[in-house]
């Protein structure tokens, strides 16, 4: 083999070597978490350390799911809060994205203003009055107390993504529906909304992830343990268990991540578009 050919092969291999190293480093903490979660306690806290579990056990999971009552409650809270918020956001952004895309009024500037506010402004600015408001209305420590602000905070990018989805629909389709005598709302519901399903999928993915992992509002507004969502509740579990509790903590984290992994895998085709859309770069 000539030296030039060797050099060419090295040049082609270099990007792979670099990317595999980065990807492995990025995935490793989660792999280690998964390995820890299926090891028996004496392997987790034993010398010498085992990298791969010598005995694979689901005992940690069984304990977490059956005995850790608080954890089940956190999981239910996360499902209810995320589920209700996401449904509301999908409905409101499908409604609001339509006039933003297809009607003329000065809403665009306002919308971009809101997006800039939500992305750049530290949320603690909104959180302080929200805390006072919710305290006065008795909304702290309730599902509604998280659902309402979550809907508001995630609407701006949802509206942006849905606006792009409505812009992409050709006007002829709307005109044809109108000729058939459909009213405006009927046209929106039966003709336009089904055509925005890719936009709805992108919105679903983005707001599901954002709400499932939200910490600041949850830790501030849900001070009673029975209302806490998983990202806050698991921190609570750790505080109660003190230091060496990773045999309990690792399965709770894996279970907390499962719904997000499932959504991510099911909607993986929308991931790139979703990240770009959420950043305020939805296509015109």
């Amino acid at each position: 083999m000539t030296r030039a050919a060797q050099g060419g092969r090295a040049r082609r291999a270099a990007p792979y070597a670099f990317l595999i190293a980065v990807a492995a480093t990025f995935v490793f903490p989660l792999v280690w978490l998964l390995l820890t979660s299926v090891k028996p306690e004496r392997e987790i806290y034993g010398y010498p350390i085992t990298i791969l579990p010598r005995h694979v056990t689901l005992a940690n999971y069984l304990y977490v799911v059956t005995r850790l009552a608080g954890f089940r409650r956190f999981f239910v809270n996360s499902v209810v809060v995320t589920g209700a918020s996401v449904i509301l956001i999908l409905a409101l952004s499908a409604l609001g994205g339509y006039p933003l895309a297809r009607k003329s009024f000065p809403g665009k500037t306002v919308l971009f203003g809101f997006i800039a506010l939500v992305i750049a402004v530290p949320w603690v600015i909104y959180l302080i009055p929200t805390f006072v408001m919710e305290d006065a209305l008795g909304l702290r420590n309730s599902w509604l107390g998280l659902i309402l602000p979550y809907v508001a905070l995630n609407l701006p990018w949802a509206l942006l993504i849905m606006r792009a989805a409505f812009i992409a629909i050709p006007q002829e389709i709307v005109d044809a529906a109108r000729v058939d005598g459909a009213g405006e709302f009927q046209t929106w519901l039966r003709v336009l909304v089904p055509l925005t399903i890719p936009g709805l999928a992108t919105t679903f993915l983005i707001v599901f992830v954002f709400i499932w992992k939200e910490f600041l509002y949850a830790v501030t507004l849900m001070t009673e343990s029975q209302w806490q969502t998983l990202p806050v509740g698991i921190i609570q579990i750790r505080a109660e268990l003190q230091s060496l509790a990773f045999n309990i903590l690792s399965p709770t984290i894996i279970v907390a991540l499962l719904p997000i992994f499932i959504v991510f895998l099911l909607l993986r085709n929308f991931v790139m578009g979703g990240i770009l859309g959420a950043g305020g770069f939805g296509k015109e």
Partner: protein
Amino acid sequence: MRERSWTALLYLAPAVAFMGVFIAYPMLWSFYLSFTRYNYVYDPRPAWAGLQTYRDVLQDPVFQTALQNQFKFGIPFFTIAFALSLLVAFTLTRISRARTPLQLAVILPMIIPPSLGAIVFLWLLEPGFGLVNIAWRTLLHTRPPEWFLSPALALYVMVPIFVWEELAFPMVIFLAGLQTIPASLYDAAKVDGASFWGELRYVTLPSLKPTMVVASVYLITQSLKMFDLPYVLTQGGPANATFTLYYYAWTRAFKFYEMGQGAASAYITAALIVLFSAASSALLSERREEAA
């Protein structure tokens, strides 16, 4: 054709109502609060204090420490995250096989709740049984540092963790930016006999300038809004070494219930976000004119 109609407002009304009550109104109310003295536990209502609230915050030694920490943390974080996301995106465009799994691996931390990601790193760095410390003892035969207990180290340990959490977004927009560079530019460079480095210097990097503005604004904003990591890993300690501005604002408001001071320090943080974002975009667009 866009049509004018009043029914448009009906479709938008619910969304606007939500954003009005939980974004616009709180923002204005917070701005008012930032000029008041208002302890939520003791004071029945906010009392006007004018600029005194801002003076109190600026003179608080903990705030000053937090401001310094923000720079000590932000500069290495920004440099590493910016360079690494650009490099990963660029190398992803140079390979043909296994691009999707490699890309997803880098995006993956974005979907992990930061508070739970923090626990995973606590486990890796656990003094007795954490893998990093075991590896350190085995390979280096010395005692590993006490990562989060050391005032000199704790803040810097958070840098790679935050890079891990935040790399996805800049990487994805760099990738999108790289894919929109017209092939004709590269063809022209090839005709002019440009080398690999010449292409990078005169085609790729200048074409990425608008994307670089977006990535730097994002990274600056995220580092000034860092909250979850100090909350979970150190509670701002040891000796206030990991207090960030955002964490400071939160503790003023929700640990000491000084709502006025909390709002004032949050507005100072917001002002810094705007200032640094504007500065970074001005800097990048100035360089573009030089190159042209």
